[in-house]
């Protein structure tokens, strides 16, 4: 496959205006699927959470999950949307092996929520108001595995296998209106927007919001037009962007790719593209053709959804804080500087730090551990921080051990590695490895006395004021204590003892 040519990013932004549109699919964490009572769980044996409905068997009929409706309304309210007086389900007709009925039960011209907005802050501090076109309910498709090709992807596969456990899982699709004027911050805005959506649905408790699990998926639409031109450029839709980092990179890539093409006088093809994280590039999918004629019509097997005003207000009252408000509150509470706080948000660690503080850690300590050591480890293992096997409570426990002097910083990092390796809770690891800092002066003094007795000349030097000599004693004591002594305390005690003896 030929490599795309890219225009330099800054150069592209000089000549072209960027318009982006984001479609985010949120997987709801209800107990059951959208249209049947099968369990909504991840990871079970294939085709064991299925029934005639989600398998599309002849004669099957859908039955709407009331909790999913409630969750969808909450998402709409959190995005300042209007909630439809009448929402209707519609069939979106197309054929695909992972689509059991060969139509998706979705919503078309009567979505549950529409006309909302959300303020998004980008790293530079600028705030954009992103307008929400609609949020609607739909069901997920099954999972396809392609077998026989070299990459496990469709191309070159011999055959495919379908697991319908995921088919029918409730999704809420949130669609923005076209976003203008983001300039060279379009990539950051896209990522920040999705980050906020994640935060919202996580705090609403309606989704686990883990992008790496596919709980939140993003399709990014990008088009560019020469500066001053009114007519919108042709847009491409990039799918398979599985992380916030990918979103940023994919949007940037598309801007550069399209800019180069336009500058050469080549037209942009309206198509779906796929993002390849390993290559850092998008590739062409199938051009949109008859797949566009979905022949939507109202789902005859389901009746309209007409939420009462009372119910909507009841749900509105249960909404948690908006992200912007929550962030301000937390920043004030923790006393972080703007830079520090932004760093936390951009690293997606707001929830982790919040949970860690709630578990008892001091805010700065929590920040230090998450944005410092844990981020470093995640990076070195090429993982997302969220994938590390450590909980905020455990981090709080480590911070507490350091705070109380029971652990030195260095030992705390050892404990951290132990937790990540699955050795257990911090306290268990400390006990198992005998890492607790000896804070008992008595034991220290005994060790110090022993060393001083063995090195009378060093003792002499210290008494004479040559404090550097203490280094040898400290070293020997630390060795004797197998590192479980606080070096600073040992130094204090050595000097003090030397004068006493």
């Amino acid at each position: 496959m030929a490599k795309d040519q890219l225009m330099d990013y800054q150069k592209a932004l000089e000549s072209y205006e960027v318009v982006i549109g984001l479609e985010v699919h949120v997987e709801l964490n209800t107990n059951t699927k959208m249209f049947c009572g099968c369990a909504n769980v991840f990871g079970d044996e294939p085709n064991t959470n299925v029934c005639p409905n989600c398998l599309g068997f002849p004669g099957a009929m859908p039955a709407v999950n009331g909790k999913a409706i409630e969750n969808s309304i909450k998402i709409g309210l959190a995005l300042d949307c209007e909630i439809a007086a009448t929402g209707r389900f519609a069939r979106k007709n197309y054929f695909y092996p992972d689509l059991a009925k060969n139509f998706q039960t979705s919503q078309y011209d009567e979505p549950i929520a529409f006309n909302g907005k959300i303020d998004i802050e980008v790293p530079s501090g600028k705030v954009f108001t992103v307008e929400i076109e609609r949020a609607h309910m739909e069901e997920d498709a099954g999972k396809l595995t392609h077998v026989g090709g070299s990459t496990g992807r469709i191309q070159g596969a011999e055959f495919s296998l379908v697991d319908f456990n995921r088919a029918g899982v409730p999704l809420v699709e949130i669609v923005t209106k076209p976003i203008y004027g983001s300039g060279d911050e379009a990539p950051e805005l896209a990522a920040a927007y999705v980050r906020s959506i994640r935060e919202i649905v996580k705090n609403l408790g309606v989704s686990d919001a883990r992008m790496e699990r596919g709980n939140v998926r993003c399709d990014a639409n990008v088009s560019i037009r020469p500066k001053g031109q009114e007519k919108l450029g042709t847009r491409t839709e990039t799918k398979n962007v599985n992380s916030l980092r990918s979103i940023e990179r994919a949007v940037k890539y598309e801007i550069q790719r399209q800019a180069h093409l336009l500058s050469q006088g080549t037209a942009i093809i309206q198509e779906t593209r796929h993002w390849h994280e390993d290559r850092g590039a998008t590739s062409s999918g199938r051009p949109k053709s008859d797949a566009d004629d979905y022949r939507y019509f109202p789902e005859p097997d389901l009746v309209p959804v007409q939420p009462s005003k009372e119910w909507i207000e009841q749900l509105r009252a249960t909404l948690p804080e908006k992200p912007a408000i929550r962030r301000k509150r937390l920043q004030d509470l923790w006393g972080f500087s703007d830079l520090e706080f932004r760093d936390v948000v951009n690293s997606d660690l707001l929830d982790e730090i919040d949970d860690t503080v709630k578990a008892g850690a001091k805010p700065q300590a929590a920040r230090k551990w998450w944005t410092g050591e844990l981020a470093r480890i995640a990076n070195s293992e090429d993982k997302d921080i969220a994938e590390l096997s450590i909980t905020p409570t455990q981090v709080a426990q480590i911070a507490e051990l350091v705070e109380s002097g029971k652990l030195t910083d260095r030992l705390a990092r050892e404990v951290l590695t132990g937790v990540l390796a699955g050795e257990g809770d911090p306290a268990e690891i400390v006990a198992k490895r005998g890492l607790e800092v000896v804070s008992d002066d008595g034991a220290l003094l005994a060790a110090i006395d022993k060393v001083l007795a063995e090195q009378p000349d060093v003792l002499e030097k210290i008494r004479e004021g040559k404090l550097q000599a203490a280094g040898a004693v400290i070293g020997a004591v630390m060795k004797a204590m197998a590192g479980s002594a606080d070096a600073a305390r040992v130094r204090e005690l050595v000097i003090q003892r030397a004068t006493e003896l």
Partner: protein
Amino acid sequence: MSLLNKSASELAAMLGSKEISSVELTKAQLDNIDKLNPKINSYLTVTHELALEQARQVDELRAKGEKLSALAGVPIAVKDNLTTIGVETTAGSNILKGWVPPYNATVVEKILSHRMPILGKTNLDEFAMGSSTENSAYGPSLNPWDLTRTPGGSGGGSSSAVASMQAPLAIGSDTGGSIRFPASVTGTVGVKPTYGAVSRYGLIALGSSLDQIGPVTRNVMDAAMLQDAIAGHDEMDATSLPESLGSMTEAAKNDSVKGLKIGIIKELTGEGFQAGVSERFQEALDLLVASGAEIVEVSCPSFQYAIAAYYLIQPAEASSNLARFDSVRFGLRVMPEGPATVEKVMAATREAGFGPEVKRRIILGTYALSSGYYDAYYGSAQKVRTLIQADLAKAFEKADVLVSPTAPTTAFKLGEKQEDPLAMYLNDIATIPANLAGVPGMSLPVGLAKEDNLPVGAQFLAPARQDARLYKVGAVLEKLLEEKWSKRMLDFAPELKVN
């Protein structure tokens, strides 16, 4: 009278008084099926073992003194578009040949819970698309009244079975007349209840906003008892009515039509109707008037668009409902010539598995929904529906029930309407409005047309949820007619000669 000629309610009474056993009855029924079915082709599958086992169980329970439901032990036939665990369910199509569902339709669960032994699955036009069973992939069923004619469709298997004593009663489905039209051409009773009265869960869908399941029987009381047995709210069907419609059995005990206002639908009378049909129809009305009913004339002008609207809505919904037959999860799989991609396999399978009428309607339905045409076709048809409902509502302000001949003609000959698809569609002119509007309708036999000595049916319509009115007037009319004839309708049927 032979056991096999008795009505279901009579058989129920005999079972209740232990005059006969269910095993005896079921066996007699199965024997008759074995004798007649090879010729008439009412049944696609006969479930001998299952039926006898179910009969044995109910006899045991009865012997123990268990309280059983009214129809317990009465064997029944089930249209082959209703799913039955462990029993092949084909919907009359090749694409489902050999398919054994892992779940029961709700109505099947209900008749099993009522302990009615299931005799087998009856023939139908493929996916219920048709008015004669000539579109069945398994051959047409024959009309017991004249074996050169069709027993109507799509439920011709059920109607021919009930009319030829191969089953005392049956469950069918009605999307545009598939219960009522076969009833009218076989001298039996067929009812399409109010949309939502009976759960559609497990009914292989044709037109989801039109389909309804109902009884196919020899008399009005049997239909009432069967509707009572299968009706009711079902949480698996979101369109099923939340409330009960009351007891049809009680309604069928009605013995008076004094003061009943019967509206004749102007648009469903006159030239388009076979003379002999109109004659018998009129005589039936005269009987009712003589008994104290009042005739008023009503007009439903939008009915002129009913067939057009129906043949847009039903194919559109069907095109979507039938998309699931794609070789992936069940049913036929046909490999294409050349390299196989899943798309090619789907297309080859559907080409091989669907008959021409089904393909035609899928293509038509796809067209009606396609971008650029939706408003003119499907969209407009859904608006015609609104007009039809409005016309009926107005008519029901003047009358308690509406009436017309069920169909323009008596049973037609095999092959007669195969050339012109439109000709077949015109059969449904009187039955379609009820499906579009969701109102209940009953066809009951009112005699034989003098031209051909073949059964004529009259159709009553009632407002939505007022199914009981159908049973009230139907019961009285039936009694009046039987008194006049000194016979039952099916007693007129010629003796079946099958070798």
